[in-house]
């Protein structure tokens, strides 16, 4: 762990050195970014979140003074390997399709005794206020590193959720006439200098989904998929969805289904 931390510190220094060069020209930028990611591969600041998430997972907390070690993320109680890659998934005990975050919150409530409000109060970090959920999801995600995304959505409820996600993906509204598909339905496009993936193909969705949760350099923290998609809606100039809303889980199901078979490389690092 000390070695990992050292690597992370070196990574942080490299990150600062490279951050200045990012505003260069198109293809150059892509090269720079590739180099920069490579340089950080051994020292992603997300590693710190992962380490913290692991201890949060094992720590006895909440009114019931219990750890999360018996949490069932779809592979059985306490089984974390490949769990993230196989979510969202239908859970019999709740009768719902749940993503990693809604399931984690469910465990915090049932095992540890937190209320929904307590468990989700700090669902994303603010300056000076870390988020336990970001750390826990980074830890859970990393346990799927190297595993293929596996959301075939064969259960009728999962299949329905994936179709509803597709509906939202193409739904146009708001003062800019946006839908997800406007930016993410074509190949080889850019917004300003940012490459845009075509999320309707396995390759495009796979490239996007395999690296989440991801450390966002511009945000100085790890973003979960909920955070990512809620921010997409902000950028579409729509109102704000609830954290853990079904519409977000539906989009995740649609994207993970499309990405199924792609090998996870998480935690990622992004602009």
């Amino acid at each position, binding site marked *: 762990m000390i070695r990992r931390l050292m690597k992370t510190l070196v990574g942080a220094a490299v990150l600062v050195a490279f951050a200045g060069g990012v*505003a260069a*020209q*198109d*293809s150059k930028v*892509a*090269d720079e970014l*590739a180099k920069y990611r490579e340089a950080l591969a051994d020292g992603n600041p997300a590693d710190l979140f992962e380490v913290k998430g692991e201890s949060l997972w094992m720590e006895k907390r909440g009114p019931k003074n219990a750890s999360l070690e018996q949490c069932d993320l779809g592979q059985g109680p306490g089984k974390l390997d490949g769990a993230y890659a196989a979510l969202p998934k239908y859970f019999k005990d709740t009768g719902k399709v749940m993503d990693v975050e809604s399931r984690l919150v469910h465990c915090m409530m049932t095992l540890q005794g937190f209320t929904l409000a307590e468990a989700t109060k700090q669902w*994303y970090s603010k300056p000076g206020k870390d988020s336990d959920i970001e750390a826990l999801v980074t830890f859970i995600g990393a346990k799927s590193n190297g595993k293929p995304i596996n959301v075939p959505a064969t259960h009728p409820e999962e299949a*329905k959720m994936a*179709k*509803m996600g*597709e*509906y*939202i*993906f*193409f*739904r*146009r*509204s*708001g*003062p*800019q*006439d*946006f*839908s997800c*598909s*406007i*930016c993410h*339905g*074509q*190949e*080889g*496009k*850019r*917004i*300003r*200098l*940012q*490459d*845009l*993936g*075509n999320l309707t*193909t396995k*390759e495009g969705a796979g*490239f996007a989904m395999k690296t989440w949760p991801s450390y966002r350099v511009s945000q100085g923290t790890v973003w979960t998929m909920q955070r990512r998609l*809620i*921010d997409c*809606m*902000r950028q579409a*100039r*729509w*109102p*704000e*969805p*609830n954290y853990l*809303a*079904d*519409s*977000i889980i*539906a989009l995740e199901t649609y994207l993970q289904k499309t990405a199924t078979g792609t090998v996870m490389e998480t935690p990622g690092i992004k602009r």
Partner: protein
Amino acid sequence: MNFKFALFFGLTVAIATPALAQKAVEAPGGKYAKDAEQMFRASFKAENPKYWMTRLEQDETMKTCQQYRDNPPRKVGEKLEKLNAATIRYPVDGKLIGDWKEGEKLAAVGTGGHIGFIQPDKAGRVRGGNCYACHELAKKEVAYGTIGPSLRNFGKIRGNSEENIKYVYDKIYNSNAFTACTNMPRFGLHNWVTPEQITHLVAFLIDPESPVNKD
């Protein structure tokens, strides 16, 4: 390496796409479309003011474009184009070409209009056309997107006739008057920018002195 692969893949699909366009495509959501609409609308925070929630309303164009995944049959497209052409309004003085310097500023502005509780824009924050997000324009701005076509030297190539000036004004006001379900927003229809601001954007594209046409 990954980037090159993505580029190669992109080209391959771009060539293969026209063949796919022939088949009738299922509307997104299939038999769950109604459920999905209900679920989507129920997913927003109760604290969102009502006037924010109106941004989820879909007019006929939005609904139809969604249904056809932005690729409507020509007959349907023509109907939408007529419908949208009828919405175009002009500045009271009738002058459709303004000040390219103002247009240049507006073309670069990508902020404004973000709502919600996490990272909203401050009230009254200037809204621009954000043209560079999708289009290449002046040579000196290298951070341009490629969702729309390059408009570099637009005026030099297309000229500054009355007809072209009106076309550009109309296109910015309501892009769907020309191409139903295009990716381009309907800036005038939504009052995203004012008719006067559109005249400045027109000048930025057409005026021979504008950096779009200069170098």
